[in-house]
């Protein structure tokens, strides 16, 4: 999957009856826009750097609609003179809806006009761009999950002495905390604009690499729970949230994908088994991290994979307590994911169907 957001996006209202703001209500990637239309037929013009869509498959975007009671059309997208009207049937209730527009025959475009078809409309739009299905690798999935998962270890201390750029050791106020390990990853914050992430080589304060910025005694030091893929080996931090693809089962499973203006036959090519584990010396902290993980992710969650929100489902989970061999307690979650299906046939829509009947004679 290759997805690119439209570049240099500018949202322009048709009049003072339309308000456009950065969406702080709910968003997928933090860059979404909220549009409030106070009258029917008002519009917003989204302009962007011109792009030839001939080699791309779909325009892709996410829409969130505040409640509407109407059964009719609610808003319209106009692209190069063609209208695409949307009603409640096209949208999910109280959730972001991923919408696809077949763009193979659109040519070059540089703007989209969004028009309200009702008198009072609040519409949010996020992550609008164009895409083409390419093969998704396991590395793509791990990177996307790393970007999505965020856990708060919720422990901090302070520096007990100033530190200069180039130093390879720091002094911590709390030297005996069980929540700091020999391989903790720390974030030092000067309280202003400078933060730096460092890795311990020893809980006494020895660093694995020289620090880049100077910090002062009293600056906050937060212990992180980093999310890592399979790019680590013997230097695995503690705590850690690790992600590992443990299975890639090949398959060919057809699926029909509906765009607003066409139907496509696509094919799932693989079923991935993904292990997400949390490993932590402190069982107290591990319990806390497990609860946070269960709340935020748990049995099923969505994450952004190359511009598309995909679902990932929990298959089972195992808790392994500290053992005689000396390992940390660990919580392991086993998920299954089918990456986006690959395009087989683009049907489009039939606009005109002409049947010609020819008489072959009369008996």
């Amino acid at each position: 999957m290759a997805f690119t957001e439209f570049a240099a996006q500018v949202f322009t209202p048709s009049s003072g009856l339309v308000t456009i703001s950065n969406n702080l209500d709910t968003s997928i990637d933090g860059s979404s826009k909220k549009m409030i239309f106070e009258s029917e037929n008002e519009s917003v013009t989204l302009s962007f750097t011109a792009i030839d869509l001939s080699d791309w498959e779909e325009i892709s975007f996410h829409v969130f609609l505040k409640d509407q009671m109407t059964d009719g059309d609610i808003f319209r997208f106009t692209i190069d003179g063609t209208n695409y009207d949307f009603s409640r049937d096209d949208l999910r209730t109280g959730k972001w809806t991923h919408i696809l527009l077949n763009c193979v025959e659109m040519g070059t475009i540089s703007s989209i006009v969004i028009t309200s078809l009702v008198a009072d409309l609040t519409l949010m739009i996020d992550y609008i761009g164009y895409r083409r299905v390419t093969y998704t690798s396991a590395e793509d999935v791990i990177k996307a999950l790393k970007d999505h998962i965020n856990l708060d270890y919720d422990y901090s201390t302070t520096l007990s002495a100033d530190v200069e750029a180039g130093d390879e050791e720091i002094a911590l106020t709390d030297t005996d905390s069980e929540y700091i390990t020999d391989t903790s990853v720390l974030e030092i914050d000067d309280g202003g604009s400078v933060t730096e992430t460092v890795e311990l080589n020893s809980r006494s304060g020895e660093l694995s690499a020289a620090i880049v910025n100077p910090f002062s005694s009293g600056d906050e030091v937060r212990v992180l729970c980093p999310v890592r893929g399979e790019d680590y080996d013997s230097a695995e931090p503690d705590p850690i949230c690790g992600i590992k693809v443990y299975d890639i089962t090949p398959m060919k499973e057809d699926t029909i994908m509906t765009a607003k203006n066409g139907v496509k036959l696509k094919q799932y090519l693989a079923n991935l088994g993904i292990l997400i584990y949390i490993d932590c010396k402190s069982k107290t902290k591990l319990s806390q991290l497990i609860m946070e993980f269960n709340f935020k992710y748990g049995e099923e969650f969505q994450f952004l994979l190359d511009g598309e929100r995909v679902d990932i489902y929990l298959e089972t989970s195992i808790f392994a307590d500290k053992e005689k061999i000396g390992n940390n307690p660990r919580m392991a979650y086993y998920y299954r994911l089918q990456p986006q299906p690959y395009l087989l046939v683009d049907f489009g829509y039939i606009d005109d169907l002409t049947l010609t009947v020819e008489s072959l004679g009369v008996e």
Partner: protein
Amino acid sequence: MNIGVKINEKDINDLAKELKKIGKIIGSTNLQLHRAKRFKDYTVEMLSGKGVDINPISDATRAIQGGDHNPLYNTGDLARKMGVRPVKGNAAEAGYFENSPLIPDKDITYTRAAILAHTGYRIPASAELGGREGEKGAKVRAWLHDKGIHLKKSTHWLIVPARPFMLRSYLQYMMSGEDMKAVDEFLEKMMTAPMSDANAADPLKMAGEI
């Protein structure tokens, strides 16, 4: 025109008996036990043939254990120790259960070994860890040193990756059609057996006989 229909009461009764028997077999614990056992056999076979492509052993493990080998066989032929048992609701499960025996010459049960194989784990490898972990770490480091494996000072742990062999095997088992075959096989066998065999007193034995 009149059409006469003659009902053979014996044939109808025989059909009813057959249907009743099929229902009883399908609902029996024995069938589920048979499927669980077939899954176990499939897993053992796939692991033996490396059909379940799990992470190979590391260079360190290869040096320690001597030669190449399937990682699971290192821990006492783990896959073959998988068990099957009936559970509530005429169901059955395959896996590693409580009261599992210790692996010979190891201080860990088969069940614990299976869990750790599925989750991955870390082994202490440095005295700097302090406490009991540090003591263990010092021993591990010294032992490896004697074997010619010299860890870096900064290596505190040996990271053992997860090898969830049962989960991999399960998906392949279901996709391969082996499970359907197991059901067909059991039905065929039971339909020719006396009615009482469908719920034999020793279901484990019964399932194993197929």
